[in-house]
Every structure is written in C-alpha cells, then in structure tokens.
C-alpha cells in the first residue's frame, strides 16, 4: 500500500452550528486509506462515523482541514462516480422491481439500455440474487433487500464503496452470512471499502484497517492494521489473532470513553 492513497484526510474539522451551539462532529481527523483496503469505522453513537463517511461522499462539507478522494475534492470525485453509497436502510423504491432499482443510478448516469441490462445481470450475480431481478422489494427479505441495495451501489462500477451500518438492522445470523458474502465480493472486485459498524466482531472480521473513534469532539483514537490474512473463513473469529485484535479495539473504545 505505498501508492497514492484513495482517501486522504488531513486535520479535518467539521462543526455543525445548531440552536444549542456548535457541535464538533469531527476534530483533527487524519487518515489515509489505500487502494483495495477494507476500513471499518467503529465507536459509540455520535462520534462522527456517519459524518466522516458523508464528508468523503461530499454530502457534508468540512469546516477545516483537507480531504481528497482519488486525489480530487469529494465533489469532483462524485462527478467522476468515484463511490457507491449504501445506507443503513435499503431504501429501495417500492414502485420499481429489483432490476429497476439497480437501473436507477444507471439511468441517471446515462448508460445505454443494453449496458444497463448487462450490468444488472452482473451485479445481481455478484450479490447472489440471480433470478430476483423481476421481483418487487416487498417480495424480498430484509437481508435480500440490503443485498439489492449493495448491488445498486456496485452497478456503476465505482471503485470505492461506502457503507453506513448496512447490516445494523438485520439479525445476527443473516448478518454473519452477509459479512461472508461481502468479503467474497471485496476479494473479487478489489474495491476500497469504508464500512461503519457498531459491532467489534464485525469490524475485526471484515477489515484490513480498523479506525476507532470517540465522541465530543468526534475524533480518531486508534488506527489498527489487522494482521489477519485477507482470506477469512467465519471460524477465524475463534483464533487468538482475531481475539487479540478485538481486544485492542475494545481497549481503544474504552480509552475514548475515559474522556467523558
């Protein structure tokens, strides 16, 4: 990972002005994310995880410091379709089929009809939803809907995938399964992934890099480069290496809390 970073934040600040006074959602955030990394953001509610992801996506604009995405400003990067964004809720349009939902960004970005069909087919395969293109969202389970929303974010082939607690609303078993699939998808597509989570095991299982954050002001307290191999069966979660990383994440979260 010595090439130029995909995402580079330097001394990033973001203060929301509210009626109750300023809220320091991000303060002095320095972070580099290299190509092909899987980076998890973990920390208690309100520590700025969502805000940081939104800054990368140019949905929020920092009040201080600099950030580049693929060497550009986040706004320019968005115009170049640098990223796909997956929200906590699948947010599929009920009036469109699964295929229709995946076509939504493709229509907006002006892909030809033939290419749209081709891409829908490919991404449905990628998220293991072949044959469900003609179904409507309500005909699918919550986990399948979330997979469809990932397919939608993948369809235009952005090389960054930003995911804000995408599996937060799903039960443990479905979540394990989706985590496994996400790793497989990451291995196949070599995308750079930014992933927000509340769950320590999820963060450790998925990531090559774990960013531990703490609130008031939102900041990074620890960045852990995972020693785990990229190839990860589910039972890697019982190995000493895994438990050691998990322990360090927990320590980092506790240290952040000591400020309160």
């Amino acid at each position, binding site marked *: 990972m010595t090439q130029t970073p995909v995402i580079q934040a330097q001394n990033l600040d973001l203060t929301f002005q509210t009626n109750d006074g300023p809220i320091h959602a991000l303060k002095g955030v320095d972070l580099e994310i290299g190509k092909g990394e899987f980076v998890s953001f973990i920390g208690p509610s309100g520590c700025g995880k969502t805000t940081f992801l939104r800054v990368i*996506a140019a*949905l929020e604009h920092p009040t201080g410091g600099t950030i580049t995405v693929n060497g550009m400003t986040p706004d320019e990067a*968005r*115009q170049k*379709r640098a*990223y*796909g*964004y997956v*929200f906590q*809720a699948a*947010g599929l*349009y*009920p*009036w469109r089929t699964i295929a229709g939902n995946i076509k*939504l*960004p493709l*229509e*907006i*970005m002006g892909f030809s009809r033939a290419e749209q069909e081709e891409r829908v087919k490919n991404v449905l395969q990628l998220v293991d939803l072949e044959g469900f293109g003609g179904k*409507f*969202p*309500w005909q699918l389970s919550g986990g399948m809907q979330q997979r469809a929303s990932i397919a939608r974010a993948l369809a235009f082939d952005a090389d960054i995938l930003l995911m804000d607690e995408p599996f937060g609303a799903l039960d443990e078993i479905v979540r394990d399964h989706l985590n496994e699939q996400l790793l497989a998808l990451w291995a196949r597509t070599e995308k750079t992934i930014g992933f927000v989570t509340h769950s320590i095991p999820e963060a450790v299982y998925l990531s090559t890099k774990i960013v531990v954050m703490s609130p008031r002001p939102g900041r990074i307290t620890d960045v852990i480069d995972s020693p785990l191999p990229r190839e990860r069966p589910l039972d890697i979660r019982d190995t000493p290496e895994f438990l050691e990383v998990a322990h360090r994440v927990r320590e980092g979260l506790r240290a952040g809390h000591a400020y309160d």
Partner: protein
Amino acid sequence: MSRALPVLTVVAAILALWYAAAVWMNATWTRDQAERAGVELSVSDILTDTMAQERPVLPAPHQVVTELWNTTARKKVTSKRSLVFHGWITLSATLLGFAIGTGAGILLAIGIVHNRAMDMSVMPWAIASQTIPILAIAPMIIVVLNSLGIQGLVPKAIISAYLSFFPVVVGMVKGLRSPDAMQLDLMRTYNASGRESFWKLRLPSSMPYLFTSLKIGIAASLVGAIVGELPTGAIRGLGARMLTGSYYGQTIQIWSALFAAAILAACLVGIVGVLQRVTLKRMGMDQ
C-alpha cells in the same frame, strides 16, 4: 353482516325521522286546506295527505325516489325533464373543471416545491382564495367571462376548478416533499439533477398523496359546477333543476336533483378510489 347492521340501523333511523318530519311540516298546509273547505280531518287523513302533496314543505322519501325514478329511467336522456340529461350537463362541467383544477394544482405544487419565491408567496394566496365564499366569486367569473364572449361550459368549469385546485396543491406539496433525507441523499450520490430527482423520486412518491387529494378535489369540482349554474339562470344542469325547482316551489324536484348530485358525487369519488387502489397496488405502495 356485522358491518351492514349498524349502517342499516342508521339508515332506518334517518328514514323514520324524515317521515316524521314530513308529516309534521306538511300538516300545516293540509289543515289549512281542510279548514278552508270546512272538512273535519282524521289522523289517517292527515297522514295520507302529508305523504302525497304536490308541493310539500318536505317531500317524503318515497316521493323523492319516485321522482328520481321517473326522471331517469322513464325519460329519454335527451328530454329536458330527464335528470340524466341535466346530470350530464353538470358532469361535463365537473370533469373539465376537475381536469383544469388538478393540472393547475399540480403545476403550482411543483413550483412551490422547487422555487423558494413561490414557496413563500403562492401558498398564502391559495389559502386566501379559499376563504372567499364561492357564491360571491361565481357571479363575477360568469359576468367577466360573459363579457369576453365565453359562455356555457367553460365558466362553470372554471368555478369548479377554483374549488378543486386547492386540495390538489396542498396534497401534492406534501407528496412531493415526502421523500426522506436518505432518499434525497441517495439521489445526490448519483449527482442527479433536480429534474431527475423529480421524475424518478418525488413524483412517484407523491402518488398516494395525489389520489387522496383527487378524491376531495372531484367532490369539490361537482359542488363548483352546481354553484356555477345558479347565478346564470341556467336552464340546464342539476344546479338549474334546483334553481327552477325553488322558483316554482317544486320541492320534490329540488330534492331529487339534490339526491342526484349526491349520488353522482359518490360515484365520482368511488371511481377515483378504484383508480387509487389499482394504481398504488401496481406501484407496490398500497400498504
């Protein structure tokens, strides 16, 4: 059955009250007549007479039903005495007014949602427009249009549109604003333009709100069309039937026109309701 019973009970109670009121209100005339003729009246004489007067203060239900039957099923639809004929006159103004009102309402709502200046300025005027009694405005519209040489269907349709655009504006503004922050953010991540967000997100999201407004709007349109017939001294249309009925004391005619209007309103609202169910079901939005 469990639902039909309360409804039937209420209907029966209304009918009973109605008959009682008819006897009570029409009896005065019966007694006056009898007094003038010097005849003694038994209770049953009063009952019979109050049910069958030609110009009762309050017609009995069966008189209204008979009149409705005679002026619909038993008249040629082209006849001036056919309620179907008059109903059609009113209906055509209603439908044209509804189309104009709905179109104007949707356009105004789009403007309000997309333009700050319109957001600040249009709504107060739209609300003000509805606080002016339609009965005060209707004659002016008719007179002004008449001086421009426009008569007949169009002035009535415009009054009808005046009443129906408002619920559509209110509903559509709410509907176009119904997508939540996440859905709008999703569009932003695609760098979508306002136009694309409108066609692909806001407009489809607004459909449930639109249909609810259309149900109110079509009923308001019908009221507008009828009101539009009153100040013109029109001789055709349900409003004209009510008006001529009141000139000549033809209370049965007034009441049957009133019921024809109510039945027409129910049918129109019902049709919109069916369209609503079919459309939303096809759009997967029928929760």
